[in-house]
């Protein structure tokens, strides 16, 4: 039961840099403090002029409440000021339904089905053209 819980305050989400894109992978139940720390970390990392995109992978997140929703929106707004684009990737259906019901449709946020797709959206061709290509069956 306690195995998945984040450690209090010590929890920090790593912000990875792949080429000119920042990649943030959220997992499990996020502590408010951790989310706020993340917001700051991303803003600082995005201040680097060579960063032109931020990808936030939500595929491992089971719940997004209005607090985390607002953190995501704030990250997007801040990075936009720094001329970088934020894409939220892999949101689960149950989370999406709940956010809409909550009234948070996050209109300013770009979204993608997966991290791979998000990187492609950000013009990730320069990173690695074969990265995460989905299996393509000829119709």
């Amino acid at each position, binding site marked *: 039961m306690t195995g998945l819980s984040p450690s209090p305050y010590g929890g920090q989400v790593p912000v990875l840099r792949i080429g000119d894109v920042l990649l943030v992978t959220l997992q499990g139940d996020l502590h408010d403090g951790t989310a706020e720390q993340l917001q700051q970390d991303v803003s600082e990392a995005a201040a680097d002029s060579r960063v032109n995109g931020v990808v936030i992978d939500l595929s491992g997140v089971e719940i997004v409440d209005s607090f985390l929703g607002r953190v995501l929106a704030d990250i997007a707004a801040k990075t936009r000021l720094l001329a970088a684009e934020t894409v*939220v*990737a*892999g*949101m*689960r*259906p149950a*989370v*999406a*339904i709940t*956010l*809409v*019901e909550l009234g948070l*449709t*996050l209109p300013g*946020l770009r*979204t*993608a*089905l*997966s991290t791979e*797709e*998000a990187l492609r959206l950000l013009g990730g061709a320069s990173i690695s053209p074969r990265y995460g290509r*989905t299996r*393509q*069956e000829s*119709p």
Partner: protein
Amino acid sequence: MSEQEAEGHQVAPAQEVGDFLRLRREQIAQRWADAALFRTVFTVSRDEAVEAGRAVVEALAAVAAAERLEDPEADGFNVVRDQLARTAASRSRAGSTNSQISTEVDALRPPVLELLVADLSARGEEHVRECTTALTVLMGTLRMVVLETLLTAGQELIERQRLQLLEVATPVIKLWEGIVAVPLIGTLDSARSQVVMETLLDSIVEQHARFAILDITGVPTVDSLVAQHLMKTVAAARLMGAECIVSGIRPAIAQTIVHLGIDLGTVMTRASLADALAYALRQQGADIVAHVPDGAGPR
């Protein structure tokens, strides 16, 4: 506590019944195995019926020992719910009515009562009456527990079937790589809209679909609740990274939507399923051409 000791003191009737049930567990289980409730369900082997009877007797003994004869929430009854209620539920599925099952549970009482009276024959009349009353109360509570569980099981069954029907009525079709569609036919109510929403969003993940088409050509009317559900589906799909297109809005429905004051402005709409597919294909970078250009063979 030894039997000699018990004879000396005046033991509470509930305790007495509890001790009796524990002591006579085997005999009662054997008798119950032939009762209609157990016999008809465990046709495979009589041992199984005896085994089930034993578990129920033990549970009743625990309830009696805790002196909670009239309390359906007593811990011991959880075992009964698990054991006997499942038995009763399969009887119910086999076509028995609830009142039949109630009668069958009631039929478990006489053989136990008979044993109890025989066991207590040496004791005072007053004590025997108290103990038989206690046993009757206990068996009454048992019947209540079984019936309550049956009703719940019945409701769950109906609910499950209702959901299954809804799912059957909501096929998701993969139209192309990365494009799924749900052709909706018939009246949409709130429950069905909910299922449509969840089914469509799940298929977006499964098929890795960037486009989802909700075709409502076959839907006669749309009320404001359903229109809201459609809009929520579109918004949720967008959050997941997919685009949802609503196609086949018939003029009458468009009129209704306008009358209801609902703004579908943020929703991508197309006149027909074909138009929606063409749009999705174009967005994916696929061009629809009349014939294959020269030299476009496999490389």
